[in-house]
């Protein structure tokens, strides 16, 4: 009996704890899901973003590589359309988007050289897309059929078959902080994809405009 009474007491107490826990969980979900629950709320949150700075780790998963290839860098955004996408390793390089102009510079032997590689046109497309995301306009690119899922997950499958041969889909995970993206997965096909994870995120800190201008 004693053990039964003890069990009842124990059973009663957790119900309060559970209640408080549930309330906290609901509040947490409302707070975190609040800004990511609709396209409108996402755009509203993005309107408060003047700048974002973050470090990132990039993992390139390739079928022909046993282990993913890692890169590290920093991303800096200033509203409405200035972006600096910088890699520190394996090769120091920086992609700059300033007033619609996109340039890449590569550091070789302590000097920055403008890069004119074949990849630049494709990267211009990517940079413009990132610029839209930073403004909360995930659903505005007609090339993608944007879908907002629960938990702040955004899935962007291409509408056209031609683009689908290049990118199968993009999956973005929104962070708890309003206006901030936690990770981006770009799937080229079932076996090859790129994963970007952002950390050390600073929102609305002052940014030197010179960071978006080219080095040469």
């Amino acid at each position, binding site marked *: 009996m004693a053990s039964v009474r003890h069990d009842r007491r124990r059973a009663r107490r957790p119900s309060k704890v559970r209640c408080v826990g549930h309330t906290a969980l609901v509040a947490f979900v409302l707070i975190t899901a609040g800004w990511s629950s609709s396209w409108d709320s996402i755009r509203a949150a993005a309107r408060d973003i003047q700048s974002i700075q973050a470090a990132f780790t*990039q993992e390139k998963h390739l079928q*022909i590589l046993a282990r993913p290839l890692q890169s590290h860098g920093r991303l800096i955004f200033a509203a409405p359309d200035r972006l600096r996408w910088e*890699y520190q390793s394996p*090769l120091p390089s920086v992609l700059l988007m300033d007033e619609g102009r996109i340039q890449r510079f*590569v550091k070789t032997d302590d000097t920055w050289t403008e890069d004119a590689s*074949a*990849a630049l046109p494709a990267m211009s497309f990517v940079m413009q897309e990132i610029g839209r995301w930073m403004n909360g306009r995930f659903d505005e690119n007609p090339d993608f059929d944007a879908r907002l899922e629960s938990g702040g997950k955004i899935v962007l499958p291409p509408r056209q078959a031609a683009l689908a041969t290049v990118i199968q889909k993009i999956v973005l995970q929104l962070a708890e902080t309003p206006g901030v993206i936690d990770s981006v997965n770009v799937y080229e096909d079932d076996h090859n994809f*790129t994963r970007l994870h952002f950390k050390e995120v600073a929102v609305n800190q002052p940014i030197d405009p010179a960071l978006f201008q080219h080095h040469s």
Partner: protein
Amino acid sequence: MSRVRLLPLIVLMLMSCHSLPAITPNGKIPTDIEAACAVIFPRQAWRMVHTIKTDFPGGRKGVMLGVVSLVPDENTVECALLSIEGLRLFEAHDDGTLTIRRALPPFERPALANGMMQDIRLIFFRPEAPPLTSGMMPSGEPGCRYALADGIQDIVRKPSGEMVIHRYDEKNRLIRRVGITRCHPDGTAGQEAVPCRILLEAFHPASYQLELDLVEARPTVDSP
């Protein structure tokens, strides 16, 4: 008068004739030169990632990442070209038959894909036949000469230890020069050395320069 008319024609003909540098059995030829020529090419299966800096005529420059997976025993190579941001621009498999798995512009051009695979084979694969001859080059450096189906390939050992491949076409025109410096990357102790720094200069039919630096190398199957 007719002799005077013929002179420009003779000069033109002489200019269009190309000759290979003489390779002679004279001088102090290292006994291990043929082994040294062969050893620059990986013997075991490797996966390697290099940064690739490209110099095009007109001063244009480009940078990409190159991934190769080599199986020399099977004469097979898989390769991928990535933008620095990780976008896969090109991927192909070549086991004697070239299969292009992905090619974004401008890599969808067959000539570009074929030329790229030929460059990869020149850098990483040993000529099929043993050397035709070995000896001293006119520069005073030891080297080996290989006969290929469509030309000649010389491999020369520099005093610095760098090995340089000279590739001539069937008209004896120098079409590629490749400098290779090998190293043991981190985590590959006990394995063969691999090409760490590669400088490829292309002269014909197109002119360009590629500078490759090793990012990482892993043996596909560990040596026993």
